[in-house]
């Protein structure tokens, strides 16, 4: 029984359960498209600048909020503890979760891009840069989710994951870009992973230059969160 088989089995299992969850569907597909639609109605303006914002919201919702809450409740139910007694290793489990989350993020992105195209979105895409920011951003927020879910009680994870999500979206350089904030505040906000992700996606989808600083911010947050999660994650 190879590791690849186990990882695929676990990714399939996670996907199966996630896609059955109505809240998940709402969070990944309905809310981002509704948000884009609302932005178009309320703000008008240039859709090319709005899609990266909504895509960031969608990625953070899928890779952070949803993953943290799901993992927290799996941990509370003792499901992860039981899996630790099977041949599925911790690495298999995390890779399986990453694959499932990545697949969900891709599905969510495809749905959003299709809706945006109908609304007139014509992006100037740098595929390499887009791939790098989606991968690094998704990975960083997934590591943060596992860090949170691996230490706290499920109820605390539920409250914190939702609270942090709202704070990051509103004040973390997503809905309001860090560049539009007063320099002292904007400088701090640009060091948050949410701002780095949104800045990176905006550049990748509007033909802007690669924001190296944002890339570095994500690398540092991602590496630090993954290392901490590895040290602190408890099965129960």
């Amino acid at each position, binding site marked *: *029984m190879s590791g690849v*088989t*186990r990882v695929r*089995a*676990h990714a*399939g*299992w996670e996907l*199966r*359960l996630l896609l*059955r*969850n109505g809240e998940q569907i709402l969070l990944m597909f309905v809310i981002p498209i509704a948000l884009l639609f609302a932005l178009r109605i309320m703000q008008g303006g240039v859709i090319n600048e709005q899609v990266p914002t909504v895509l960031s919201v969608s990625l953070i919702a899928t890779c952070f909020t949803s993953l943290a809450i799901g993992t927290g*409740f*799996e941990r*509370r*139910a*003792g*499901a992860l*503890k*039981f899996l*630790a*007694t*099977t*041949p*599925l*290793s911790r690495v298999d489990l995390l890779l399986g979760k990453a694959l499932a989350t990545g697949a969900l993020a891709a599905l969510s992105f495809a749905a959003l891009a299709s809706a945006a195209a109908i609304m007139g979105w014509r992006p100037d895409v740098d595929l390499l840069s887009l791939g790098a920011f989606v991968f690094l951003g998704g990975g960083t927020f997934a590591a943060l989710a596992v860090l949170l879910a691996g230490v706290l009680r499920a109820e605390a994870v539920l409250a914190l994951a939702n609270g942090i999500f709202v704070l990051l979206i509103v004040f973390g350089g997503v809905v309001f870009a860090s560049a539009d904030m007063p320099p002292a505040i904007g400088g701090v906000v640009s060091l948050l992973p949410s701002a780095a992700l949104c800045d990176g996606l905006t550049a990748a989808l509007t033909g802007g230059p690669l924001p190296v600083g944002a890339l570095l911010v994500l690398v540092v947050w991602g590496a630090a969160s993954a290392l901490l999660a590895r040290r602190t994650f408890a*099965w*129960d």
Partner: protein
Amino acid sequence: MSPIPALMIEDLVVRYGDVVAVNGVTMTASTSQVTALLGPNGAGKTTTVEIACGLRSATSGTVRLLGAEPGTRAVTERVGVMLQHGGLYPTARPLEWLKYLARLYPTHADPSELLDLVGIDPSTHTTTRRLSGGEQQRVKLAAALLPNPEFLILDEPTAGLDPLARRNLLEALAQRRDAGTSILLTTHQLSDVEALADHVVVIARGHVVAQGTVADLTGADDAMSFSGPPRLELTGLAATLPGDFRVEEVRPGNYVAHGPPSPQVMAAITTWCAEQGVMATDLAVGRRTLEQIVIDAGSEPS
């Protein structure tokens, strides 16, 4: 030379900060036998079991399961586990859960047949969180049996089961044992232990206070038992009893005189104790029960 035990634990110590959960447990579980781990709540049973499952790290000591380090793949592919608390995905249906688990093992039983065996309808669409406590226990047991394990670890397997389900479970475990599976179980249902266990280990305050067969621990039917200070020199007592009597200290402070009980023997024991300046308490004819042993283990001073 005796065969290598399926589970070997030597001088196991587990500390959580200043709390010592397990303090020098040494025990074995033999191949193709049922070993029951007994003791009062907080004795260290679940910690010992979780160490054997590879879920926790020992502070010190040696643990070998099927000849290898617990938690390694060489072990997890050959071991089935039923945890005391949890162990199910709440939103999963029983059959899909077992089918997923089957993909993790190199060999496995048929998930539908296993659910049938434990009395769960394989075609049910009910998610595990909507099953009754007893039904959840049965799904957990099916998951433990799924890899056709060489070693089964069951933490409180009969908790929440109705009498019929409990009897069926005990029969299923006896069949597994007879087919060669080694089983380690913890339980507070002492009648289950008397019905099933080949070897019993009693833990209290983190260490083993008694182990042996049920008959060893409770004394044979032809026996008299009494309690007193530990480590009494018994040679004098044996000399006052008929020649076919054998006297031993089965646990610190608990003594059994093996042989046919009679008023004369009872008088000889109390007289000898009086000569030693010792008060013989709990003087009983016949077997001590496992319940008495576990209660005594929990009430003995550290």
